[in-house]
């Protein structure tokens, strides 16, 4: 086991980034024109990085599997983006955002990275406004904020429930400007299927043109992976259907360590599952917890009556309801962090209080918010004695203006009107904090290969706070990578154009071609989805919201078996030389089948509970925190970075010890 060098700069925490930037090597503008960079993925991280690098003068080639960079799954982020602007005068600061993020991540993230993230957060908002991103504003024309889980200030900027869309379209517009100038060459409907290394350095990729099936060689002086998270290893998640881990997994197999795969975020407010044919789960933004109150009935008889349709939730009086988050966590109430809210929902449902047929749903209720806003609006409108009807109408209008699109989404899926009856929600896989290990410069353990956004592991520890994913994606892409990559590329100015007619490229292409040929020739009896669903089931059952040693061992064995079956019995119709969605899926599922096993292995080795990783063996047994997750800082305050060695079960562990110099490690308490 080696020690990883995270290359964190010396000096006091608050000066690290400034000093580092001031001493980083630069590439002169004339030389930038001779340097090529590949960016894989066009979400907030990839899109913003590609645009910024091109603005600086580098030649950028960008790849996405969608038909347009604007469709990357960042587009689906709803609630908002954090920034330490302190516009609300509520005591926010760079330090507080940093502190909240480290605490929210259950003290498993890298201090220096998180502080840098907080430092640049304000710039992101400035930059996005300058691009024409239409954030929500108040009547004075200034930017409005809302609150998210796990914090006591309002620092979240938003554009209704479509913040991710607006931010991505901002990055997309910056990217378009560079495409028009010829500084970015955009490859839509292309998937990266292999990393090419020359003399130990990342020098290019093999990409498959998804329309023609052709394999293409692309060379560059550096390769940036911004391909998002691996939540789809669970089959059902809030990720897009095409979201995949292939690019990240390919670089892992070529030497990039994969860190903390077991840190996965199960988001508390998603629309519950409806049946076996469901293809994905839909998130209802955490911002709803600003105004929604979560509850289940107090009495089990009421639960049963509701399930049988004999009782409606609105018929239950306040006394008959258990607002369990407000009861258990009075300080944070409905705005506890995601991991805490999810486990509480699971606990109530496991105890038999789930309110739908599957027993896996709790209520998210807006009735009191509608009343509150209705009264407020009536007062503003100087109505003397508003009727209950007036109040409801006014209150619903306020809710509509805040969350209109989310309520409409809910109504279309569930066929119930959430203005009139509480929403039903249940936790679902949403985000992966783990990912490719990177140093302070965001370089992976392969020289010249960088990883940014959700695809890397660096900033969120064991649990991500709401509205921090957008912040990290754009921080990496706009304000971190464009600086740090220069340090490496300053040594590349004499390299010259990199040829793709070399044995390394040839070998990589052959490797890919053989793999595709092998898949096509299995000609088995089961579809790709069949295996993906089996994998998802094993993951959810044993590596889901609660994990234990026995289950995790079982998961590893089961996933290995599914993988063997997949390679013996998968059926991929069509051919490899045309658009073939089944072949695309097969390649991605093949990678998930390896990643899933490493995921379980990581969860097994980490015999502590922290953030989204909850080990049943590690809970507080008494005191005020009884039943809460129990962290073990003595043995596990490190990043687990796994080195690929063939079978996922044989992966070798490298530890990066986490040092907390500015923050005292404490048990997280939201009570």
């Amino acid at each position, binding site marked *: 086991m080696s020690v990883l060098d995270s290359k964190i700069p010396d000096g006091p925490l608050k000066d690290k980034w400034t000093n580092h930037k001031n001493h980083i090597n630069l590439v002169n503008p004339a030389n930038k024109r001779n340097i090529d960079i590949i960016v894989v993925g066009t979400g907030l991280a990839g899109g913003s990085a590609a645009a910024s690098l091109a603005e600086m003068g580098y030649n950028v080639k960008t790849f996405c599997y969608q038909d347009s960079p604007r469709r990357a799954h960042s587009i689906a982020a709803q609630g908002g983006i954090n920034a330490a602007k302190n516009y609300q005068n509520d005591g926010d600061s760079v330090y507080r955002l940093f502190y909240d993020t480290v605490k929210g991540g259950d003290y498993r993230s890298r201090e220096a990275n998180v502080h840098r993230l907080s430092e640049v957060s304000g710039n992101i908002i400035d930059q996005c406004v300058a691009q024409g991103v239409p954030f929500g504003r108040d009547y004075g024309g200034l930017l409005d904020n809302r609150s998210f889980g796990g914090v006591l200030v309002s620092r979240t900027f938003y554009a209704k429930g479509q913040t991710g869309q607006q931010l991505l379209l901002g990055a997309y517009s910056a990217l378009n400007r560079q495409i028009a100038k010829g500084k970015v060459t955009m490859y839509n409907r292309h998937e990266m299927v292999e990393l090419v290394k020359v003399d130990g350095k990342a020098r290019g990729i093999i990409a498959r043109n998804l329309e023609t099936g052709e394999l293409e060689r692309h060379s560059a002086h550096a390769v940036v992976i911004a391909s998002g998270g691996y939540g789809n290893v669970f089959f059902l998640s809030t990720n897009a*259907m*095409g979201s995949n881990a292939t690019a990240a997994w390919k670089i892992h197999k070529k030497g990039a360590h994969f860190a903390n795969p077991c840190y996965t975020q199960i988001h508390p407010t998603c629309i519950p599952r409806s049946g076996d*044919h469901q293809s994905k789960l839909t998130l209802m933004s955490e911002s709803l917890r600003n105004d929604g109150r979560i509850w289940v009935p107090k009495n089990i008889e009421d639960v049963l009556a509701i399930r049988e349709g004999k009782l409606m939730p609105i018929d239950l009086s306040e006394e008959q309801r258990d607002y369990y988050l407000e009861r258990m966590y009075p300080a944070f109430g409905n705005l506890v962090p995601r991991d805490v809210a999810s486990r509480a929902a699971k606990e109530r449902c496991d105890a038999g209080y789930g309110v739908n047929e599957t027993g896996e749903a709790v209520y998210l209720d807006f009735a009191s918010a509608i009343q509150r806003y209705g009264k407020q609006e009536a007062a503003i409108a100087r109505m003397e004695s508003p009727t209950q009807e007036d109040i409801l109408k006014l209150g619903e209008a306020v809710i509509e203006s805040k969350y209109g699109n989310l309520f409409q989404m809910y109504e279309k899926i569930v066929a119930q009107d959430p203005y009139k009856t509480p929403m039903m929600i249940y936790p679902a896989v949403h985000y992966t904090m783990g990912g490719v290990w990177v140093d302070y410069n965001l370089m992976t353990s392969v020289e010249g290969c960088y990883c940014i956004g959700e695809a890397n592991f660096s900033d969120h520890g064991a649990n991500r706070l709401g509205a921090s994913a957008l912040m990290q994606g754009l921080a990496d892409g706009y304000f971190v990578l464009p600086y740090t990559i220069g340090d490496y590329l300053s040594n590349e100015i004499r390299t010259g154009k990199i040829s793709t007619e070399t044995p390394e490229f040839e070998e990589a292409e052959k490797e890919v071609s053989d793999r595709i040929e092998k898949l096509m020739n299995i000609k088995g009896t089961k579809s790709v989805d069949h295996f993906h669903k089996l994998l998802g089931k094993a993951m959810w059952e044993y590596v889901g919201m609660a994990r234990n040693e026995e289950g995790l061992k079982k998961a590893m064995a089961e996933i290995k078996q599914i993988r063997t079956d997949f390679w013996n019995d998968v059926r991929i*119709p*069509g051919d490899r030389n045309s658009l073939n969605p089944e072949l695309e899926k097969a390649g991605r599922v093949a990678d998930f089948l390896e990643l899933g096993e490493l995921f379980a292995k990581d969860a097994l080795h980490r015999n502590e509970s922290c953030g989204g990783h909850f080990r049943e063996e590690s809970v507080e047994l008494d005191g005020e925190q009884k039943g809460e997750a129990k962290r073990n800082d003595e043995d596990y305050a490190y990043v687990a970075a796994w080195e690929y060695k063939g079978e996922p079960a044989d992966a070798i562990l490298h530890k990066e010890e986490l040092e907390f110099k500015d923050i005292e490690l404490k048990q997280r308490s939201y009570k």
Partner: protein
Amino acid sequence: MDLTLKVWRQKNREDKGGLETYKVTGILGHYSFLEMLDVMNEQLIMEGTEPVAFDHDCREGICGTCSLYINGEAHGPDRKVTTCQLHMRMFKDGETIYIEPWRSAAMPVIKDLIVDRSSFERIQQSGGFVSVNTSGNTQDANALPIPKMNADKAFDVASCIGCGACVATCKNSSAMLFVAAKVSQYAYLPQGQVERKQRVLNMVEQMDKEGFGNCTNTGACEVECPKSISIEYIAKMNREYLSASITAE
């Protein structure tokens, strides 16, 4: 419910294509339309037939990838939804459903139900941006107040998902609603003022070059738009275009 599906099949860009008939059974009302197609495809795979290729990704109505023309309507019979948000409870047992790709010369079919929307990309590249580089020294976000009404209107048009339903549903294959949305967003914001005239001229020029038709005010696009973008913005774009044509240098 049991359904008969008449699905457009086309091998590639060159192929002529035609409708094929498939049957699916046991579909429940809470399936989304795309989950129904998943069932059909699983069936085709088991029968040894190549499944039907269709575009889809987020399946929550925001990425704008899905694009089906269902029983003669873009995104099917429901309103304010994309195909992925369309649910089978909108259909009746025994019904025959026609499923076709978008049809427009500027959006050719690539395969089966998948079309090439790169014309939209080129329109955006011709001017759909504010020319501002990434900079750590941009002025403070609150330095320039924007009237709430303008910010809200800019947001309303910016919610366009670029799916192409407006084009598919228009008898003229016009992309005016799509282009109007982007032009209007920046026209409402102070940040968009500097390039305001050149932007509308360039984007309209590119739109025409791509072969999209003109607007004859039938309003079909507004009805089918999953984000309910109003055709009043087409009027706004026309105004922008006219004033830019007269006054631009």
